[in-house]
């Protein structure tokens, strides 16, 4: 009897592993197909523009909220800590490291995963359930070129200026908190940043933009395309997409920083 139970357990785990590997293989092909359709961007430039508006312009408020809050929070907390060591003049440098390299891009990635990723997942999932994606295929249109490629390209283009905006807003807010909360002269704050800014700070920051764009767009789109089982299925696939892309954003954030800093230290 225990042997049967162990056998059943092993069987179910093997099946789960097989399904996971199969899903990973499908995702890999899906991603390859999405990249291979990038040359069709000229044909779908209107869709690219529409998506650029959605993931870029319309995301500005949420990116500003996250970068302003992280800039303010870092400046306030780190300032309190540095005060204990009499090193408040280093506040600018500490804040800029956090805002430019780590927490700024990370929070932006998570916010875009929630906003843009959920929108992609729900929209494409609803299209899948209502057979609109099958209709595209049935009438001779490649749904990946029409629906996924514009989202991918728009995110690749728009996430870079969003990161720049996020960096700018985060640092400005940090400077304001330093001036009005910690009573640090803005000149001292900025002087602790500019001379010490290195190319690696910007490489880490801006390299995260395309990495997050690829993760968020492809994971959410793949889950939308995989939606099954009516409106409840759309909900399930959207949640799966957000959870997976947010998790991958967290992991990628660490590895991009580590790899770039290892190479450019």
């Amino acid at each position, binding site marked *: 009897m225990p042997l049967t139970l162990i056998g059943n357990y092993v069987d179910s785990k093997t099946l789960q592993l097989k399904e996971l590997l199969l899903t990973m293989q499908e995702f890999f092909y899906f991603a390859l197909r999405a990249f291979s359709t990038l040359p069709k961007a000229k044909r779908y430039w209107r869709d690219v523009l529409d998506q650029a508006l959605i993931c870029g312009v319309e995301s500005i408020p949420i990116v500003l909220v996250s970068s302003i809050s992280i800039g303010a929070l870092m400046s306030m907390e780190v300032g309190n800590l540095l005060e204990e060591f009499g090193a408040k003049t280093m506040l600018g440098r500490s804040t800029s490291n956090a805002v430019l390299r780590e927490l700024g891009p990370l929070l932006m990635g998570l916010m875009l995963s929630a906003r843009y990723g959920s929108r992609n997942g729900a929209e494409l999932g609803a299209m899948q359930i*209502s*057979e*609109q994606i*099958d*209709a595209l*295929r*049935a*009438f*001779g*249109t*490649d749904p990946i070129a*029409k629906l996924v490629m514009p989202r991918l390209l728009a995110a690749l283009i728009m996430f870079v200026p969003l990161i720049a905006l996020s960096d700018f807003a985060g640092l400005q807010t940090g400077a304001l908190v330093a001036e009005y909360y910690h009573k640090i002269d803005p000149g001292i704050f900025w002087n602790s940043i500019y001379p010490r800014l290195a190319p690696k700070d910007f490489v880490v920051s801006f390299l995260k933009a395309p990495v997050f764009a690829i993760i968020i767009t492809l994971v959410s789109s793949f889950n939308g395309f995989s939606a099954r089982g009516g409106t409840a299925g759309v909900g399930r696939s959207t949640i799966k997409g957000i959870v997976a892309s947010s998790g991958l954003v967290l992991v990628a954030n660490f590895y991009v920083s580590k790899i770039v800093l290892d190479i450019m230290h």
Partner: protein
Amino acid sequence: MIELRNVTLKYGEKVILDKVSLTVQDNTIKAILGPSGVGKSTIIKLMLGLIKPNSGQVFVDGVDITPMKEADLYPIRRKMGIVFQGNALFDSMTIAQNMSFFLRENLRLPDEEISRRVMEQIRFAGLEGYEDQLPESLSGGMKKRVAIGRALIFNPKMILFDEPTAGLDPVSSRKILNLIASLKKNNDLGAVFVTHIIDDVFAIADEVAVLYQSKIIFDGPTEQLHESEHPFIRSILSDKILEL
């Protein structure tokens, strides 16, 4: 002509279609009848190459489409039009845009020719004056007619209908069935329609294939259905289909 030859399809361990063979001749209306969830819609998707069978072959005009890649299937699919059960209209596009979308996507036609073809289909579907409306503002029957107009946009030889009268009131159902019959009469088009409503079959189908428990248990002229001794078919003819 479309032919399924010994087609088997499984989802995991579940057998959906078991060595199914059937043929749809040009200029013929063929019904595929069976209870809900038996795999009727799957047959239509196999005919279009939207899904691939585990074994067996699907021929369209004598060409085996089963080993074909997606890009090679597009010209084959344009020989057929499809009307999905839920119509699959693009809800952000107007009626005219829904009809013109695939023309613009696939054929390099001048705008005047696209407009002419779209208006032709709008008139055929009896939807003059609704060109600029969104699908959400139309009734179920009207949406179905838009979907039929869209299916005709490439001048196909055959149209595939997935439960064309499902969810429609009796008057709209009758209009849609008449429209399907008129396509054969006036446009020399063949049609395949899957349904679980036996009255629809007797109303317009020349031939019927009955799918039951993954197998085709009858395939022949509609009028010969009465001669079948199969218990399931006898129960259908006794009007028990909705209970099954």
